[in-house]
């Protein structure tokens, strides 16, 4: 069991994601970006390089300065999304990144710099990002309290 949202959890998800060729086709592909994940006080910056997720680092708020975009929502919604993925093998309708982004008043994908070009990466790589989180279905996750 690995605690979400620790860097170790993302490393475990990355190991599944990087090893599965199915995530490279059908709308997937290489991606080049760094994005943040904010879950309460925990912040992790994830690096995507080509076909692989190559790194996950715990940072503080200042560490978000150079990410292309970051994903933020209440802990309870992160857990609901990941539990849905764990139960179904992938995110179902109400728990996809796009759906959550539309349903949250403030959106899921945000920017610290307001750079439209970099914000657009969330949409350009949307399927790959979804595949990455879907890969968590094969990781034993400790959702914490």
């Amino acid at each position, binding site marked *: 069991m690995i605690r979400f949202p620790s860097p170790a959890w993302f490393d475990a998800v990355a190991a599944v994601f990087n090893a599965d060729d199915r995530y490279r086709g*059908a709308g997937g592909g290489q991606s080049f970006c760094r994005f943040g994940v904010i879950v309460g006080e925990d912040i992790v910056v994830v690096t995507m390089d080509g076909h692989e997720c190559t790194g996950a680092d715990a940072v503080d708020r200042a560490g978000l300065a150079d990410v292309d975009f970051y994903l933020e929502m209440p802990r309870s919604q992160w857990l609901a999304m990941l539990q849905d993925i764990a139960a179904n093998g992938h995110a179902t309708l109400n728990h996809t990144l796009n759906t959550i*982004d*539309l349903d949250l008043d403030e959106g899921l994908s945000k920017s610290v710099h307001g*750079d*439209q070009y970099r914000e*657009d990466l969330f*949409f*350009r790589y*949307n*399927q790959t990002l979804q595949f990455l989180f879907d890969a968590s279905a094969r990781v034993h996750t400790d959702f914490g309290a």
Partner: protein
Amino acid sequence: MPEQFPPKYGTVARSNQWGTRVKPNKHGLRLGDINVGVYGEIPDRWDDQTRNPRGAIAKKGVPPLGYAIRDKADLWADSAADLYEEAIQRRFASATDVPWDTIKPLPDVLERAICQVLTELCQYANCDIEVISQWQHQMAYGYHEVKQFLATATFDATRMYESFRKRALCNGGGLGLEGPGEINRMILESRGGWSETVTYLLLMRGSFMQTMLRYLERYAQNDAERSIYRFSLEAKARQITYGLDHLRYSIAHDDDRRTVMQTLFFIGDRVWARELGDHVLREALSIVFAGGLENAPTTGNAIYNRMMRDFMNEYLGICEWLGVKRDLATLPGRMSQYVTGAAG
């Protein structure tokens, strides 16, 4: 007997830069990787009027082909080579990548609404194909990265057209009413230069289509529709990225561009407002978002309004990012009613 001549092979050895050895890296050998030496020199103006590949030795006496777009500021985007690679990798085949078997019979009114939306999306995609290809042959070969990316954009548009049409014709429905097409005509008839067309096609209509695709994915009835909209969303996002990148480059290299864009948006807004007056698409989307007719006037309409607010926020956000000043007081009422934030 073919004419015989003693081979000399002297001309074969001629090159502006021989001995070039670009090595693939862990991501392969990408289009942008080979921009080295003379092959990577991309001038501000390309005066060669032939198909001479950038870096090759020009041949004397080749009749000009009449490329109209020869200034870098009129088409360039630094991201073009990367977007080309991205488009090639992320392509999809609708015949096999869309799980068509997940489509089940739907209530007639819902199927009709979905088909109506798809009919108008087919028109959008068809417009994309025609518009991009009618400009592409006018672009000088020195900027091949842009030409290559736009070739993928055309192909992405054909895949969208194909997918939308297939969905409309596979579940007992059919195509509906042709949309008013005023925006399509405005885009097709924009003759002031490629940058003007980019403003209308990729930023104005592009951001609307992207927003609509996001909502259609959200309220899709099955995985097949979700796949179609998600694939299309990625392709549309690439096009918008090119548009943003190009216009930012263009504004930085052409003093008057920002003011021209201000005027273009002012004109485009009025055509857009006329198109918004057509109720067919709005009603169809409301039914789709509500999952049927019963809640379309309430829930469906509310979601439609939210989609329009998201679109206006995105549209005005793009203008702001490009530094194009917008006077919200001059927005037509059919657009300004959806303005909520401080964007613009």
